[in-house]
């Protein structure tokens, strides 16, 4: 069967309040994804539109976005796994190409979170838990991750300072990313002294809601070579799930959906954690990045804090992680996030990550999590 490549990847600027419509956000991402490709809109055989519908005013956004981008009459449809919706979109696009149904597919993720107040957005997120059994207690995304943080600290001695050091790193790289919402460097003190949201997570341990869009163009291998000089090959692509309820979780010091997806993705790609040159992980909260280090095998269970302590996840470290600023700096427009992570890895593998290029990067990894660890997605890309 044919190989599948990513030929283009783009994103809009992520911001707190974009002041434009979702179709216009999608256009910005689409435009950047097509830049430099020997392809036009009419060469795209299908589009997959990704968001978390609870934040959207527009119902059935696939029809709207495909009209605006002039992708009609080609098929367009919608997929959702909350924060990992666009990784799921990539998975579906890969399948459509691999099956021979289509040659070129666009995956467009978006979210315009500024249409809701911060408390209302938190309430919608809370309904991303089990609405009969757990949402009525006031479970929120940060609270769910905070419970993982507490368990990790109690079992392994991870500290609030370790968590803050993740933000110090990501704010350092975010400061030079022109697409990021938050472009200021933060000191350890700034982070440790910020308001407590849900213990032990403080304001600067949390990513911000944002508006934004991303676009990834996927093509059949032989076609890809005619579209771009540097196709980026999808060599591992795995999704896994865990329980919707916190009550159902068997492990509170790591995300089992990520562990499962990672294990299978390494096998599919025929690589090991130490072969990864650069990674994008789902740092919706600082603790999430430390859990990811361990779930992806970059550190042993319980030793994730050591990686950030030793600065091994900086650009010149053993395994650079989120050197575009991560969700913590870029902001987290739910449906757009996975595509933005993929864009960063594509730029790294093409040697085009001007702000923070990892020298000679050949193999990259994207870890994109939906909800409080309900949906785990690990994608491995190769130049």
């Amino acid at each position: 069967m044919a190989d599948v490549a990513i030929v283009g990847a783009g994103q809009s600027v992520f911001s707190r309040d974009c002041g434009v419509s979702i179709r216009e956000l999608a256009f910005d991402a689409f435009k950047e994804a097509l830049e430099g490709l020997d392809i036009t809109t009419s060469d795209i055989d299908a589009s997959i539109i990704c968001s978390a519908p609870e934040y959207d005013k527009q119902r059935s956004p696939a029809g709207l976005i495909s009209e605006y981008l002039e992708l009609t009459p080609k098929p367009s449809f919608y997929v959702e796994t909350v924060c990992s919706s666009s990784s799921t979109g990539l998975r579906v696009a890969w399948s459509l190409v691999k099956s021979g149904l289509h040659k070129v597919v666009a995956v467009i993720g978006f979210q315009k979170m500024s249409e809701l107040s911060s408390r209302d957005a938190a309430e919608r997120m809370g309904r991303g838990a089990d609405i009969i059994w757990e949402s009525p207690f006031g479970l929120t995304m940060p609270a769910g991750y905070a419970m993982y943080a507490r368990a990790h600290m109690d079992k392994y001695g991870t500290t609030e300072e370790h968590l803050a050091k993740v933000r110090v790193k990501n704010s350092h790289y975010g400061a030079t990313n022109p697409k990021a919402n938050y472009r200021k460097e933060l000191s350890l003190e700034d982070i440790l002294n910020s308001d407590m949201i849900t213990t032990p997570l403080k304001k600067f341990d949390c990513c911000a809601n944002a508006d934004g869009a991303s676009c990834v163009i996927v093509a059949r291998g032989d076609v890809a070579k005619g579209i771009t000089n540097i196709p980026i090959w999808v060599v591992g692509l795995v999704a896994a799930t865990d329980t919707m309820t916190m009550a159902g979780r068997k492990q509170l010091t790591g995300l089992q959906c990520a562990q499962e997806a990672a294990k299978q993705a390494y096998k599919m790609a025929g690589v090991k954690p130490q072969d990864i040159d650069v990674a994008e992980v789902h740092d919706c909260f600082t603790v999430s990045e430390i859990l990811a280090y361990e779930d992806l095998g970059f550190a042993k269970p319980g030793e994730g804090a050591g990686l950030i302590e030793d600065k091994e996840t900086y650009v010149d470290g053993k395994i650079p992680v989120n050197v575009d600023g991560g969700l913590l700096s870029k902001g987290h427009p739910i449906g757009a996030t996975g595509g933005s992570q993929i864009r960063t890895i594509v730029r790294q593998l093409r040697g085009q990550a001007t702000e923070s290029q990892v020298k000679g990067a050949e193999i990259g990894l994207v870890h994109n999590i939906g909800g409080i660890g309900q949906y785990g997605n690990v994608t491995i890309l190769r130049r």
Partner: protein
Amino acid sequence: MGFENFGTVSFTTEAKAAEFITYLEQGKVMATRCPKCGVSYFPPKADCPSCLSGEVEWFEVKGKGKLATYTIVNYGPSGFENDAPYILALGEFEGGIQIMSRLSKDIAPSDIKAGMSLVVSSLKRPDGRISYEFKKG
């Protein structure tokens, strides 16, 4: 009776498992068990996907559990503003049952320790709504 009066904000009402609420009104926090294959469920399920039976039995979650993890929530979402700060927690009980609930307001934050002994008990809130919470065991 369904889930309309359960917790701070209930988002849905009808469920086969709504018998849970009848027991909760009587002061009991219940789980379900499939008599055919012996699997127990919390949150309760009215169906057993292991053997596809729809005839589960209810049993009370009794005895002492221990605190697995917790967080003090300072920022409540819409509908929960007046509850904050509140403490969400996971408690582990006998038979592999894990429950997410809140810690009782009787427990001072400074007394909270991982592994501390807990019991789960029904709660009638001052506003007339019902729930369950963890108390010191």
